[in-house]
């Protein structure tokens, strides 16, 4: 087992190295440089050369890459040009905010999606099924950023139930209540589409199961219908629902960028967009590396977990 984990960890090394090369090359090859972004209208060749020299960008590319990689291996991701603070601080803070948002949305869409799909399947072609199907279609069809703006207009501007934007109140305590009030709208807006997808797929997964013999047996021996659906059928259907949840988790995480812009959520998606527009090379590279490393290690953890359940995978 230990050997397997070690092998998997070692195999991550070339992947991560490859990512550093790709992200470095992309940032080096796109037109426009940080000096131009900093100087704007004042970007004379002379000024650009001066700023690039002071930022260390006049060295040959291979040397810039090695210096960057060397520093990173020692835990130094460098300083953001545009924000003038350490890249790693900014990236970790922002990534944390994204995880809170996407995590909440994921819990919401998993619970609501599975429940709605189950109710829908249990009442196939009944009014509840039709109502849920209609709502779900509507939810899938609305772009999340548009829904977010509409929610802001209604719940923040008109009704003033929730704050418009941000993660924390400007004054007052930073407690759970404050976080929830800021988190509610963006998390819901982000969860809506995924909820719809999960509901649709849960419905068909459940319908599939409901046609099987053991369900008929359960009903025949007099098990209460509620118990048939929620205990017997849903448990069996979860086998095909779970992979969908996995896919939707990634979808929610990547969809967070629109929501972060609309709700001014200080997450990593918005950070990367801003950083790319400002040609904030080190911040883009650092951000991508951290996110990519998380995906790689998440995959390793999943593989290891699977191998614990199924010894055949280990070989």
């Amino acid at each position, binding site marked *: 087992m230990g050997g397997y984990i070690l092998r998997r960890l070692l195999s991550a090394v070339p992947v991560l190295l490859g990512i550093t090369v790709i992200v470095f090359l992309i940032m080096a090859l796109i037109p426009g440089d940080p000096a131009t972004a900093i100087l704007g209208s004042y970007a004379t060749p002379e000024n650009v050369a001066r700023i690039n020299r002071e930022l260390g960008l006049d060295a040959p590319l291979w040397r810039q890459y090695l210096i960057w990689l060397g520093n990173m291996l020692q835990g130094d991701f460098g300083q953001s040009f545009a924000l003038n603070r350490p890249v790693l601080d900014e990236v970790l803070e922002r990534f944390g905010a994204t995880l809170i948002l996407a995590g909440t949305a994921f819990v919401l869409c998993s619970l609501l999606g599975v429940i709605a799909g189950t109710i829908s399947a249990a009442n196939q072609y009944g009014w509840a099924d039709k109502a849920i199907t209609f709502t779900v279609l509507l939810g899938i069809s609305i772009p999340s950023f548009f829904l977010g703006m509409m929610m802001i207009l209604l719940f923040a501007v008109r009704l003033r139930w929730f*704050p418009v*934007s941000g993660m924390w109140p*400007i004054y007052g305590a930073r407690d759970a209540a404050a976080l929830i009030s800021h988190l509610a709208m963006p998390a819901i807006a982000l969860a809506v589409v995924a909820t719809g997808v999960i509901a649709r797929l849960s419905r068909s997964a459940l319908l599939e199961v409901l046609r099987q013999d053991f369900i008929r047996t359960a009903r025949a021996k007099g098990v209460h219908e509620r118990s048939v659906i929620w205990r017997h059928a849903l448990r069996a259907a979860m086998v095909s629902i779970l992979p969908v949840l996995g896919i939707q988790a990634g979808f929610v995480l990547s969809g967070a960028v629109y929501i972060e812009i609309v709700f001014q959520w200080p997450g990593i998606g918005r950070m990367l967009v801003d950083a790319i527009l400002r040609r904030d090379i080190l911040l883009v590279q650092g951000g991508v590396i951290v996110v990519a490393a998380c995906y790689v290690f998440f995959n390793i953890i999943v593989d290891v977990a699977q191998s614990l359940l199924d010894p055949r995978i280990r070989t």
Partner: protein
Amino acid sequence: MSIGHLTRRSLLAAGTALTMALGAPAFAQTPPGVLVVGQIAEPKALDPAAVTAVNDFRILMNVYDGLVRYKDGTLEVEPALATDWEISEDGTEYTFTLREGVTFHDGSSFDAEAVKFNFDRMLDESHPYYDTGPFPLSFFFSAIEEVEVVDPTTVKFVLNEPYAPFLSNLAYPTGLIVSPAAVEEHGSEFGRNPSGTGPFKFAEWRPNEAVVVEANPDYWDGAPQLEAVVFRPITDASTRTAEMLAGGIDLMVEVPPVALSQFEGESYQLHEQAGPHLWFLILNAKEGPFADKLVRQAANYAIDKEAIVNEVLEGTAEVAAGPTPPAFAWAYNEDLEPYPYDPEKARELIAEAGAEGAELTFYVTEGGSGMLDPVAMGTAIQADLEAVGFDVTIETYEWNTFLGEVNPGLEGKADMAEMAWMTNDPDTLPFLALRSEAFPDQGGFNSGYYSNPKVDELLEQARRATDQEERARLYKEMQEIVHEDAPWVFVANWKQNAVTNDRVENFDLQPSFFLLLDDVAKN
């Protein structure tokens, strides 16, 4: 029935509870005496020498002072940390008398040594704190040969050549004076631990959330009315508008034109102020149809600037007449009239030049500082030019890429390109973008290769003149010639706007586009 009742009642109760639990505490109104400003982005640093963005300047101008500043409502300099100054006959020595008894927020005192420290830090590569840079706009002061401390309250700047914009550059944020003691203490972290002499002192910076500054009760020009100002970065303009409508901010800058109608009525006040901004089209005067002056003039006649300003920009800009924005009141030539919208005249000129049906390549940017609504404006311009018989092809670029295409010059690539500049002195834009010696291969921004020896001479003279009236005369003559030669299509001067709610008093926008809050009050 009874179940239905129960459900409805419990729903109502749950709704009320939710409102009370979530709604009430978190978004009560902003507290009195504290002004919450909706900014357009997270600031880079609060070190005036290290930043370039108007967004950062809005905070800095309230934390620091310069030796001089712009007189309220104008772009003319008046004393600030310097009470008086003398300029030598040949225009190369500026001697300032400094205000006495001023201290920085960190308690250290302001004197001639502090002034010298500030400029040496930016300009002298061997200065121990030069590495707290880079200082992108330090070339504003590249004319400085040496800063001499005459005595604690007198400082002398020796310039390597006469340079008339020097005083107004000192009033620019890059010339704001920072505390040497604070730079020595924090080094490269000074930008997050700023200390100046201004009406507000730095209190707190919560990344991506807010920068908080508090009143400086000992301010030499009188303590401010407000207790504190909170600058919140809200990048998305629609979200910023929603925050203003929901009461989450008291003052919003850069209201998008389409959102202006939201703020009509009693509870809001809309502020507008034309600034030193010019939106124009660079025409390639070296090759192609625009090498002919008549065709350049034709383009100026063909484009309906009124429509662009009123329809596309919803009245957030004014039609520009020439290369110098009217905000430079003292240097602006009042006799200049914008080219009228006259497609007939344009067609005549095109026919006279034999340029009917010419194909034009037009560089358009997707966004960028001061570019307003470049895609929509570019499309309107394309339609106007096609109406008089040109065949216009638009090429659109992202801002940084766009600068990389335009700044090296349009030769061999395009006939025209959008551009906008915001400057602090009437010298800057024409000197950098209209002289023969400012062609791109000489490090300037004359991307359209306009060249007129008379204009070159006037601009050189204006830079050497120390008398403001003499400078004004030279600039006015320059504007007349450039207007006639039409190296650019003069399109618009942007009016900066802001909205305040009805709790904010004494707020005015400045032509400099700086946000000055020391007289503002809020109940």
